């Protein structure tokens, strides 16, 4: 076993994809010579050449739009959006074309392409550098949306995303880039479309994805002292969603808290909460609660810790799950 960071795992996944499939291309802003502002593409241009990994002009819509044309004609582009909030110029391409090409052509043209974006906060970024934009993508039919929470998943889900027949939005929790695990690459984890129980428990289920999985796991650890045995389910694949794993867990425990750092209103957390309420109603001892970011523009570095769901806030929610009625 080797100690590997999430950044290394993503780099390795891209390198292995480039090595295995000559249709794969990696491009974006500063991804070539520099290796990306987070160094995720470090060394790829040198190793696989300028035709396979390269810098583009600074224009996100152009990057994604060009990838559409490439994917139409036999290539498998993997593009990097430099930061979550800088993907917005590409939004029209993503919503009107990336997501819809298969449908607009009655299944004749598919777009196997990956849009990678460092996402979420917790790194002390100034404004526009900490957005959690998963709801926009998850709300758009035609997109596959995944967010790894572990080093192994970062590698395995990215390889799966590159091989996936549909366009994938690959959200990389930037505050986990330097998190490390004992894992030897290549690693083959569960496929896209599967949630994973990260920690078994009997009293309540914490549902989380991306950067919030660690928070949920830490909360579950801390909850032991309070006498609660919490299960943690890592959603991993927001679209398609593995409803069965989530529902089975919550039916078993009878209580659930959904944790995500995006603003809670009209969010993925809201969708998960509604789903669990609909499908687990008779098994629930308490309403499903949400612990999310506030409904505010992402705060300044000095104040972001107030915004991000933390162990305390998760435990408060767990405490509010009507235990006295149990």
């Amino acid at each position, binding site marked *: 076993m080797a100690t590997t960071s999430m950044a290394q795992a993503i780099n390795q996944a891209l390198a292995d994809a480039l090595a295995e499939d000559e249709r794969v291309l990696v491009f974006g802003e500063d991804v070539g010579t520099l290796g990306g502002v987070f160094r995720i593409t470090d060394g790829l241009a040198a190793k696989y050449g300028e035709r396979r990994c390269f810098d583009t002009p600074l224009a996100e819509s152009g990057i994604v739009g060009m990838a559409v044309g490439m994917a139409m004609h036999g290539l498998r582009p993997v593009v990097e959006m430099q930061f979550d909030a800088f993907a917005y110029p590409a939004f029209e391409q993503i919503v009107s074309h990336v997501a819809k090409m298969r*449908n607009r052509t009655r299944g004749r043209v598919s777009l196997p392409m990956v849009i990678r974006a460092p996402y979420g906060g917790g790194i002390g970024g100034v404004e526009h550098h900490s957005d959690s934009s998963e709801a926009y993508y998850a709300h758009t039919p035609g997109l596959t949306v995944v967010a790894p929470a572990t080093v192994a998943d970062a590698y395995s889900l990215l390889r799966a995303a590159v091989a996936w027949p549909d366009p994938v939005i690959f959200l990389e929790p930037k505050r986990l880039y330097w998190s490390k695990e004992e894992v030897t690459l290549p690693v083959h984890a569960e496929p896209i479309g599967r949630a994973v129980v990260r920690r078994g428990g009997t009293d309540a289920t914490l549902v989380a994805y991306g950067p919030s999985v660690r928070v949920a796991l830490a909360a579950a650890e801390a909850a032991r002292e309070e006498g609660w045995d919490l299960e943690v389910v890592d959603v991993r694949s927001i679209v398609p969603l593995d409803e069965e794993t989530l529902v089975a867990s919550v039916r078993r425990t009878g209580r659930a808290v959904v944790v995500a750092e995006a603003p809670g209103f009209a969010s993925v957390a809201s969708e998960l909460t509604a789903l669990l309420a609909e499908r687990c109603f008779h098994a629930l001892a308490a309403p499903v609660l949400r612990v999310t970011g506030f409904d505010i523009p992402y705060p300044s570095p000095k104040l972001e810790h107030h915004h991000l769901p933390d162990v305390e806030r998760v435990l408060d929610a767990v405490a509010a799950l009507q235990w006295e009625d149990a």
Partner: protein
Amino acid sequence: MATRSKAAGARLLPSAEPVRFIEADGTPVARRGLPGGPELRAAYRALVLGRRFEQQATALVKQGQLAVYPSAHGQEAAEVGAVLALRSTDWIFPTYRDSVALLTRGVDPVEILTLLRGEWHCGYDPYTHHAAPQCTPLATQAPHAVGLAFAAQARGEETVALAFVGDGATSEGDFHEALNFAAVFHLPVVFFVQNNQYAISVPVRRQTAAPSLAHKAIGYGMPGVLVDGNDAAAVLSVVGAAARRAREGEGPTLVEAVTYRIDAHTNADDATRYRPDEEVTGWLARDPLARLTAYLTNSGQLNVDVEAAVAAEAEELAADLRTRLVAEVPPPPRELFAHVYHRPTQRLRDQAELLRAESTAPEGS
């Protein structure tokens, strides 16, 4: 880049007057470079078929058979010339305006009108015809042409990609990004702007302060060419040269075809609210079909027999379109769920089932 001379820059600029081979009355401007008889007769045929197709489509709107039709009446020489200048393996990226281009490419007229008939899909197989689905979000197809050209080049093909763009759409960000990417990566792309003078109601002078749309090319380091879009011979020649350049590895070209939209933006638009009738009359006198017909007839390259045969073919096309379009059965509602992903998700399967149950539920249940 710094080594590029001023002279090289100047060569990127369009001519002051649009390239024209045939005057509005059919008189040839110059014989040099004028495409030959077979090419021009093919353009003539495509123009006649295109115009008849448009008339039929417009009639089908009136009969309630089409949801909407954006007519390219007046622009047929541009539509036809651009496509005939390409090889059938070259890709075209048309807009909602460019049905005649698709017809010229050989797409079944019923398939062309599928979307405008109110279906949710483009109707034809893009891979069969090397034609992307007709694009409505303005200029967003231009970066796709760039990407396709990139892929073609990477695969060692000689394929050229041509993006149709309207004058109004040149103001969109994607137009800029596409031209810039194509030039920076030196890709085999032709950007074919049909300046039909209006974007719905807004005249082209409100889109740009540049001397012409073709002038924009120099800002990207590619040549810009102005062409008389009502002269099929000139369009054939100019787009042909741009495609040749692209194929020979000399990079992209921006072509502005100066033309006019004779009809309203679509059947739902009232053009009298923003343009005088005299303007339309003036452009009717520059009709692309009359021009080519006059030239070919005067130069002895078209006789009444050929004319009659093409006219008969056009009537046949229209009749066949009417019959088949009206008989076309829309896909079942459950197919709405079939192509969202390569495999419908469980949610989509559940929703398809819900819709099925609703539509088979007995009355009053």
